[in-house]
């Protein structure tokens, strides 16, 4: 299992000599968690950065993992492509503890990537990033005709849709019939 070890710089313990306000209370070391997507590449992310995701925040809030336990139990997100999870992790790190700006121009411009990102962000419940994503998806069709919108948003026509549905129904019916026949065979 490989690890990209995201955000390790902020994990380094503070040097006592570099701490200007020695009288201040010692900083609580930040805890880190690990996540991986479909590609199994593990990303190390601080709890602060993960707070953006309501889903992960809910998962880790009562865990109290030690560093070793967290490393041994990365959160699996099999439904998210590795590069998309990387984007999400990067965004969470960049916006850790910061107020989110009104605009975010770093979202992917390619529609397939944006589509996957929207689904991932929705699943991980990252509200601010989802707002940007929805805005970006809307911006894609600004000033475009219905035909262009159909192409940009990769939408089949209603007729195509119906034909595909009929086809799928037929296929599902055949599959079901096949399985019933197999079951009957098993029973014999």
């Amino acid at each position, binding site marked *: 299992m490989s690890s990209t070890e995201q955000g390790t710089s902020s994990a380094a313990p503070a040097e006592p000599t570099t701490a200007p306000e020695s009288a201040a209370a010692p900083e609580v070391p930040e805890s880190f968690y690990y996540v991986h997507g479909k590609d199994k590449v593990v990303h190390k992310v601080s709890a602060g950065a993960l707070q953006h995701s309501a*889903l992960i925040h809910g998962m880790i809030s009562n865990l109290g993992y030690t560093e070793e336990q967290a490393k041994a139990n990365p959160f699996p*997100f*099999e*439904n998210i492509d590795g590069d998309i999870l990387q984007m999400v992790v990067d965004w969470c790190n960049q916006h850790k503890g910061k107020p989110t700006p009104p605009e975010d121009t770093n979202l992917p411009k390619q*529609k*397939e990537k944006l*589509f*996957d990102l*929207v*689904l991932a962000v*929705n*699943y991980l419940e990252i509200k601010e990033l*989802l*707002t940007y994503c*929805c*805005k970006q*998806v*809307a*911006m894609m*069709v*600004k*000033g*475009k*005709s*219905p035909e262009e*919108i*159909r192409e940009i*948003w*990769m*939408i*089949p*026509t*209603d007729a195509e*849709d119906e034909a*595909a*549905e009929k*086809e*799928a*129904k037929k*296929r*599902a019916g055949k*599959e*079901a019939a096949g*399985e*019933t026949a*197999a*079951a009957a065979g*098993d*029973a014999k």
Partner: protein
Amino acid sequence: MPCKLPESAYSNPETIQKFVLYDVLQGIPPDIGFQRLCKTLRQNLDYPKYEYLYYQFYNGNPEPDMPKSFSKSFSDLPMELLDGIVGNLNLKQRFRVRRVCQNLRDVIDQHKSRLKIFKVSFDCEKRWNILKVDDLDQKFLKKSYKKTLKLLGNFLKTSSHVESFELKLDNSEGSKSVLNMLRDVSMTSLNVENAKISAINTDEALEILGFFEPGELKKIELQSERGNGNVRKLVEMEQFKLAESVDIRKFRVFDSELLEKFLHFKRFVVKVNSISKENALRLKNAILEDSGPQILSVSLREQYDLVEILDHLEIDEESGDEGFNYTYFTQKIPNSSEEIRLEFHVAEINFSRRISNNVFISLLF
């Protein structure tokens, strides 16, 4: 206890759909439900198919067909996401997106939007009718309004709030259709903030006013070409009682006894037959009662006795006159930074409360 049913009895597509429905009903997140189901069935199911079914049930479709395809189509995104995307589109763009496919049409028709402007104007003297809803600005022919009205009805039905609602109705068929459309969409009250209604049939104007949520409606402006509006009916309406500003100067000229029904407003503009010194004093006292800016404007059909009113209001010092147009008086309100100002025009008296000129100047410097 191990299940004695053969595996084929619970792993066919129909049964799997029921398992997914169970996960939705139990509020189990799709990823966890998927993992559990794979484990239980000892099968590697297809996650996109599971997730598709999950969101079909979640979004209220009780009988989803198995997915047609898993192409990356934005129209297949969950409804709440599509709603978020649609919320970023202006009205013109929504019209275009609406024409793309049935799914997006449904999303747009159900999207709760906030409209800034909703204006429909039927004018018998003009060839065109005017329609303006936010950035959508159209002129349409007298006879070709039906399709537009249906869309307008949808927009109104799904709008959570309308900032400015402006309607001008004549006696045409189109106007009647607008009224019918409003009757249809106002099964639940419309959240309108400012309403300006001009109608030949003033009962219709009041009926339309009744469609708006009382308390939400802050500003009312009514006009009638014939000046025959029913003010007695208006003042009994909840929408009127809970509003902050009303302008019915062009709705009807009425007797000043009814002015007492207007004293709670921050601003009103009315026309009365005449004003007695007692009613003038009531207006002055109403201004003194509430703090904050107020403007009460009373137009008069008949002439008034300036000296008698001034005497009754206990104002004896003239502050100035604006040329030959009007005379005005200001009086400092005790224990306040505000003053009362009275303007006497030829056929109009204005009472207002505002920050005192001296205080205003000191604020400026």
